[in-house]
């Protein structure tokens, strides 16, 4: 086999210009495909990280997955009641402490109970509807990034004053509230409480920063007039990707509807899949175009080498071995192209990662998210080499089909 490599090497090194064009074609395709992969996955990971950081990995609600049987059904085995009216009224999660303790024994992460209701917040004649969540700050830090997203005050300050609240930055701006401002919280139950704003947070997600406030669980329970109830448990896992499995296990164990972050954002993740598919097509097209350079070069070489092919066949060198010379040439050009393209891709990714954009809403400077991983280089490189080999198949096959006698007679 050594002589095949030697012939192939001689062919490509004696045609520097053509080889260079081939290498350039492959390198450009590989470089830009690596850059696109890094950009695409970087953007996606950045978005998912933000999403996963902001919300619980699994949310256990007080919705039952099955409606409890009617008393008659429970008393008599032969009785079955059909067509019962919709879901039963949500009455909160029963025995929350017992459930939380039980779940803590096996969940690979942290769990925190909370109480979520709708409320109104008002200050100096300004009034806005908000989602109010009652939390325990000590447990909250284990399930959310709220404590680290505080822009003023502290989450633990909720303990320091009665009816204290932590509100989003956008909401604070709308209300003209600052840390220390007094706000009134009220609910549809006709209950209202007043207390200071002890902290301001910003997640960078408008819906949350503009419409979410946090208070202690007991404050939320007072506002809902349900002093011993919680209606939500939030779970943060060590591995966010395990959320689906954990949610279904919690649901099976407790009977309460459990929603993973993937399920909660199913539409968004589905859109990512479509986006991935489109980007794959674009990248495949880029690699395909780059292999046309290889096809063209191998076609030229095989055309020039018809006499050599004929004489090698006449000497008794098998057709497949002769064909493999041109495939080896293609892989040689492809390998150099992949190496050069990998370097180009890395430089492109590095350059783009230095670029920052100013968020028009927050004014924050954010770098372009690029994901660096060897996987991109390996996958793109392998695909490119396979494309190069395939690109050489047809011209080399056509060339080696030549009948030696036709060439020998022609030359004579």
């Amino acid at each position, binding site marked *: 086999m050594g002589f095949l490599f030697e012939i192939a090497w001689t062919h490509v090194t004696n045609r520097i210009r053509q080889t260079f064009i081939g290498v350039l074609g492959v390198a450009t395709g590989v470089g830009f495909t690596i850059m696109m992969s890094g950009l695409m996955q970087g953007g996606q990971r950045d978005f998912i990280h933000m999403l996963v950081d902001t919300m619980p990995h699994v949310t256990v609600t007080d919705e039952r997955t099955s409606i409890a049987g009617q008393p008659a059904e429970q008393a008599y085995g032969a009785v079955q009641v059909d067509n019962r009216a919709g879901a039963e009224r949500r009455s909160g999660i029963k025995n929350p402490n017992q459930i939380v303790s039980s779940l803590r024994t096996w969940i690979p992460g942290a769990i925190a109970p909370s109480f979520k209701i709708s409320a109104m917040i008002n200050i100096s004649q300004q009034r806005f509807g908000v989602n109010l969540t009652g939390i325990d700050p000590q447990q909250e830090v284990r399930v959310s990034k709220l404590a680290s997203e505080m822009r003023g005050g502290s989450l633990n300050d909720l303990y320091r004053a009665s009816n204290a609240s932590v509100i989003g930055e956008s909401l604070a701006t709308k209300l003209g509230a600052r840390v220390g401002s007094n706000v009134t919280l009220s609910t549809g139950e006709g209950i209202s409480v007043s207390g200071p704003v002890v902290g301001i947070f910003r997640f960078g997600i408008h819906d949350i920063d503009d419409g979410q406030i946090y208070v202690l669980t007991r404050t939320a329970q007072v506002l809902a007039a349900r002093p011993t109830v919680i209606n939500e448990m939030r779970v943060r896992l060590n591995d966010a990707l395990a959320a689906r499995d954990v949610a279904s296990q919690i649901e099976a164990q407790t009977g309460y509807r459990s929603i993973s972050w993937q399920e909660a954002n199913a539409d968004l993740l589905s859109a990512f899949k479509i986006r991935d598919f489109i980007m794959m097509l674009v990248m495949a097209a880029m690699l395909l175009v780059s292999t046309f350079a290889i096809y063209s070069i191998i076609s030229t070489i095989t055309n020039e080498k018809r006499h050599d092919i*004929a*004489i090698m066949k*006449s*000497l*008794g060198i098998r*057709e497949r071995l002769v064909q493999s010379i041109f495939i080896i040439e293609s892989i040689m050009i492809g390998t150099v192209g992949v190496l050069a393209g990998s370097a180009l891709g890395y430089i492109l990714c590095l350059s783009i990662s230095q670029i920052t954009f100013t968020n028009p809403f927050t004014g924050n400077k954010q770098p372009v998210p690029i994901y660096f991983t060897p996987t991109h280089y390996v996958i793109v490189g392998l695909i490119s080499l396979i494309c190069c080999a395939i690109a050489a198949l047809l011209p080399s096959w056509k060339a080696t089909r030549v009948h*030696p006698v036709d060439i020998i007679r022609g*030359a*004579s």
Partner: protein
Amino acid sequence: MSSVAVQAAGLVKRVEGAVSATLVNGIDLEVMEGEFVAITGPSGSGKSSLLYLMGLLDAPTEGELYICGQATSRLSDWQKAQLRLSTIGFVFQFHFLLPEFPALNNVLLPMRALGRLSQAEMRAKAAALLQSLGLEAAINKLPNQLSGGQRQRVAIARALANNPQIIIADEPTGNLDSVSTDQVFSILRDLARQNRTVIVVTHDLALAARADRTIRIVDGKIAEAACGVEHAEG
């Protein structure tokens, strides 16, 4: 007692197409080991076609060809290629050397394809072959740095690389001057003396006369067979 190296039995080569033609028309022929046979005839008579059939470069439409007693019509392409590589050496009118490789590498090519010797053995043997043909100074030269006669001698060295039993040459002196022609023919003559079978197609009747036997082909058939003058005289 020498045995038959090449035997053609009723060989026919017909070409179908817009204009069909019978290039070789029922040739029966035996060429013995160590025999030097010259095939002559007018242009288009079918002598080269017969040579290509005997060299397994082409397949007959009818008939059977035996190489060293082995029937070849049922051999696969791979088996024919292997038989060519190990048993038959070719020399053509045009040298057909690989232009990007020096003389030594051109001679090495069939040996490396056969793969029976080590690298060192192959290199030593190729160098010895070139030296034996008076090409020691041309070992590392590219074909375009050699004269016509030298190129043809390199082509002969390449044909001899795998110690083939049969040498087939198609107008090997057609492009050479008289001195080189004489050299090449002498080499072929010597090969026959070394008990190799040499079959040469040539237009040059004077050279053909130096063969053991001359076969004249006309219209794809053997028109005449005679012993070479020099050989007969010798």
